[in-house]
């Protein structure tokens, strides 16, 4: 789900999402001439001006260790800091070295632990600061979660032509048990 700048809006029913995402403009706008879908429940999506709401991703406790990959599209330079919290931790328990999108080094990190079980309940966050150099005008950053070479899910933040060209955003995932066995 993309972050929206409007704090509260009426989300359409799930079955209409793909259809509506294809419309021009807001991800949930209705194409001209199309019949408007029945509105879903009023829902507030927590979002920073340049961020994405917390996303839950299911992992397999019996599988291998979890890896996360951070990326920035549109060839914009940027830096990031990944942070991880074990279940119930009062402060971050995993703080790898900071990185940037400049070097050819793969921006992939393996979480501590020998198996997926060690990562169940963890919260992983990425603080990303981008400098948008047009063209292209748009930006997108993505935090992806992998296990045993398979992508389990991702969280991303994107936008078009931001007023400020230096953006800081937070991408966050919550890892829970229940992924593919």
């Amino acid at each position, binding site marked *: 789900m993309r972050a929206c700048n409007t704090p509260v809006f009426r989300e359409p029913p799930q079955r209409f999402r793909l259809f509506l995402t294809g419309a021009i403009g807001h991800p949930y706008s209705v194409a001209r001439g199309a019949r408007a879908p029945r509105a879903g429940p009023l829902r507030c999506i*927590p*979002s*920073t001006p340049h*961020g*994405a*709401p*917390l996303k839950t991703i299911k992992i397999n406790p019996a599988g291998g260790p979890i890896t996360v990959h951070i*990326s*920035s*599209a*549109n*060839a*914009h*330079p*940027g*830096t*990031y*800091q990944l*942070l991880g*919290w074990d279940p119930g*931790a*009062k*402060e*971050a328990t995993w*703080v790898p070295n*900071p990185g*940037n*999108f*400049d*070097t*050819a080094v793969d921006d992939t990190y393996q979480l501590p632990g020998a198996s997926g079980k060690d990562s169940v309940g963890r*919260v992983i*966050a990425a*603080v*990303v*600061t*981008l*400098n*948008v*150099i*047009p*063209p*292209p*005008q*748009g930006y*997108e950053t993505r935090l992806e979660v992998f296990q045993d070479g398979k992508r389990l899910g991702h969280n991303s933040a994107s936008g078009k032509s931001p007023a*400020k*060209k*230096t953006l*800081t*955003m*937070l991408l*966050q995932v919550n890892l829970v048990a229940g992924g593919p066995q």
Partner: protein
Amino acid sequence: MRPLARILAAAAAVVAFAGAGNAQETALKVDSLASRYRVDFAVPESPAFSLIKTEESQILRPSVVREVAAAASNFSGSEGGFALPKSFGLEVAPFLLANGARLTLNEYRNKHVLYTSRVSVATGRDTARRAGLALALRINPINRADPRLNRKFIAALNDSLAAITQVYAAALMKGPPPNGSLPKLNAADSTRVERLRSSIDTLHAVFERSTWNAHAWDIAAGVRATGRDSLGNDLEVGEGSLWSTYSIPMKKWGQLLVGGKASAVREYSDEWAGEFRGGVRGYAGVNRYKGFLEAEALGRSAAAPRWLLNGGVEARFTDSVWSTFSAGLNWEGSGGANLSSRFTLSLAAPQVGKK
């Protein structure tokens, strides 16, 4: 000045020039008008547009890539008044447009020639009112004014970006997991972040100022087809051209361009003639305002050589609107010199990041 006000001022200047354009050729009041404007060298004039319009100087100028650029010229009507443009050009960077959403900084660097390549298309009418269509491809094998390709600039940028990232990370890591939003910074940290943002803007401004005349090499190829009438019926290829231009910096204030254009042109007799133009152009000024002086030689099969001495000014009103005014003398064979002048207004998508 507010952007809208600048655009209105530019529009007013267009109307003023459109009216004055023809008068300049006889009154020789070039300097008084020219003094109001100076140049932006980074104007991405499309090769196709160059093929369509009857430009005296056809040296192609290196520039920073933009996704879409459009240009319109020939605003002056037959009586010297304002008229709708007779020609229109459009330029796109197809690979950047198609793959930009998945493009990483390293991929861009490794294949920058591909991602900065541009395709342009232009339509217009010639002096006999025949409609024409031109297509062209332009590539930038070397462009040291591209901020993404400058490792020192990116490294300096990353230092400031990393400092901002660490301010937020430090505020987060000492507490429990965030609830999906960035932490609120205290006053001292907010001030620090704002200063770092300002330093990034300054970095861009300094880079732009220091690289306006950087080494760059442009190559372009294009074809023009002309119709039998104003509707473009029975289009027939009338010209094929190949350009190459290299720009060399002259300290901080100037730039030298060396370029050439080789063409095959269909004559009125339906026979093809070879044509070669070689030229040197010197620029002096700053990024937004520049003056230029150029010399050009034209050789054509079975025709006397032609020489051109031209001078002018370019001014950028906003990041998306700029103009060029030029006037010069040309000689053909042993004949006397002729005076000509031209005004062009160009429009493009907004350029490099401003705050």
